[in-house]
């Protein structure tokens, strides 16, 4: 248990690749920008020097590569690969938000109402209401129970 407690992309990794000049063109210091970037509150394009100055070209490429999965993920910073899902339902029953919406889930029964965060349809995970996930911004909680219990690595918390 407790595997993967550290975020896979951390602000320090991003900060090291930023210009680190604290020019504040984007409105923040470079460290703050790195944190905001990870929370997807700003875009990489907001850092003007990174795109205009040639000496940062290599760093820009590395940053784009590093942040690719981040921008592919949902607002909750969770990436779900439906193809990998085997439909075990561990995430559905373990999810605290699901149980509070539909108490039947707490007894191990797969939810069929449209109110829950996600359910299993045709042997695969199906997200219904992503805004009810504990990780949904702005009041994001660092819950990662679904990733922890997933048998098939179909659920991946990016950051």
């Amino acid at each position, binding site marked *: 248990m407790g595997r993967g407690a550290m975020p896979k992309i951390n602000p320090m990794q991003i900060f090291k690749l930023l210009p680190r000049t604290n020019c504040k063109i984007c409105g923040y210091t470079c460290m703050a920008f790195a944190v905001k970037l990870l929370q997807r509150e700003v875009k990489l394009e907001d850092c003007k020097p990174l795109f205009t100055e040639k000496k940062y070209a290599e760093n820009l490429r590395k940053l784009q590569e590093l942040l690719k999965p981040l921008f592919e993920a949902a607002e909750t910073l969770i990436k779900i690969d439906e193809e990998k899902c085997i439909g075990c*339902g561990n995430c559905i029953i373990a999810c605290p938000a699901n149980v509070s919406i539909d108490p039947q889930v707490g007894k191990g029964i797969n939810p069929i109402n449209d109110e829950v965060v996600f*359910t299993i349809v045709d*042997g695969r995970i199906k997200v219904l209401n992503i805004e009810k996930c504990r990780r949904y911004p702005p009041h994001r909680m660092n819950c990662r129970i679904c990733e922890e219990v997933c048998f098939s690595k179909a659920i991946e918390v990016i950051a």
Partner: protein
Amino acid sequence: MKQLSNITCTGCSLACNDLVIEIEKNKVVKIWGSCSHGTKRLKELPENRVKCSEKDTDNAIEKAIEILSSARKPLIYGFNLSTNKSIEIGLEIASKVNGVFDSEPSICQLHIPIAKEFKIKNLRFEEILEKSDFIIYLFVNLADTHLRHASKYAVFPRGEYVKSGRESRIVLSIGYRDYETMKISQHNIKVNIGNELELVEKLKNLFINEKVEELKKFNLSAEASMLLLNDYRSSTFISSFIGSHILVNIMANQVYRGIVSLIKEIENSGKISTLIPLAEELNSMGAAIIPYNKYGFTHAIEFSDGNINYNPSITSGIAKLMRDEVDAALIVGSDPFTHLPLSIASKLKKIPVIYIGVRETLTSKISRVAIPTTITGVESGGKIYRTDGVEVELTPFLEPPSEVMNEEDILSKILRGL
């Protein structure tokens, strides 16, 4: 389009009963709650259905009767996907024709007969869900075989005495490699083939005699042992589930005995303790329980003029085929030609084979008589045993193709004709 709820899944022996399905034009279009195994069985109906080898089913049945009654020692084999009634009829056929009754537990699911023979107390999954606070998975990887076991019956659901579900339960997973089950368990022990018995002894030492020591062989430090003992001490209801991986050991029987004695000693120490074999296919459990209740043996039963002979190394289907001692075979819902070793499977080609099943398989191709049946639990109903020994009623929800009979009717017609 109609929606049906509380459908029982027939994908594996867990028989999850909370499925909701949507049917359109006699086809399942959407299923809520089924895992990938169940979805495959309920939704993707076989395109390659076996064709009747004769003009119609009645003719095929007559030919089957002919083969069975002229045979000296026929093999009656299969029944993993059959209903309880089919298995009962299969036993009667075997007894009437002085044949050999065998099912898959004799080859690849030995944990079922053995757990039954040792008369381990079986508790229902529902009771485990409500009360069990310590779960042991022995040599089973849930992600391969019983996908919903943890989420529906054991680890995650919140129970009467285990209010927070997974947080209130301790899970110990024992296996040969990195099982996915180990992702959801607090204590993991990996064991090399051949060391299982030693591990069982060490666990007995730890749990019963409270002897904490470092187990280098099993990569378990003294701290981890202490932690495991503490968790064990604070629990009251220990449920163990045993899978089929253990068969890789040639000493499987001895290891089972060791495990059973561990479970019994835990029970004697004042805790509730149970051992449930996790059967793999829909009614593997029934194929073992029904012969056991009737004759005292779970598989490899040889009938000869009212007497019963049980000695798996001589009377099992494999042994009989190997020694050319059977001269006909009735295969029900199984595909032995695919999963038996080639040298033994090829013996099936030399004898007349009657195949009763849904889809076309290698066995159906080599059979002299092939009789198509409906899909149990989808197109025809009946009762089966869930892997914890509870009888479950299946209700059909699709119309079977015309002229296709269900297995029970075919088998009882054969029995009547003998």
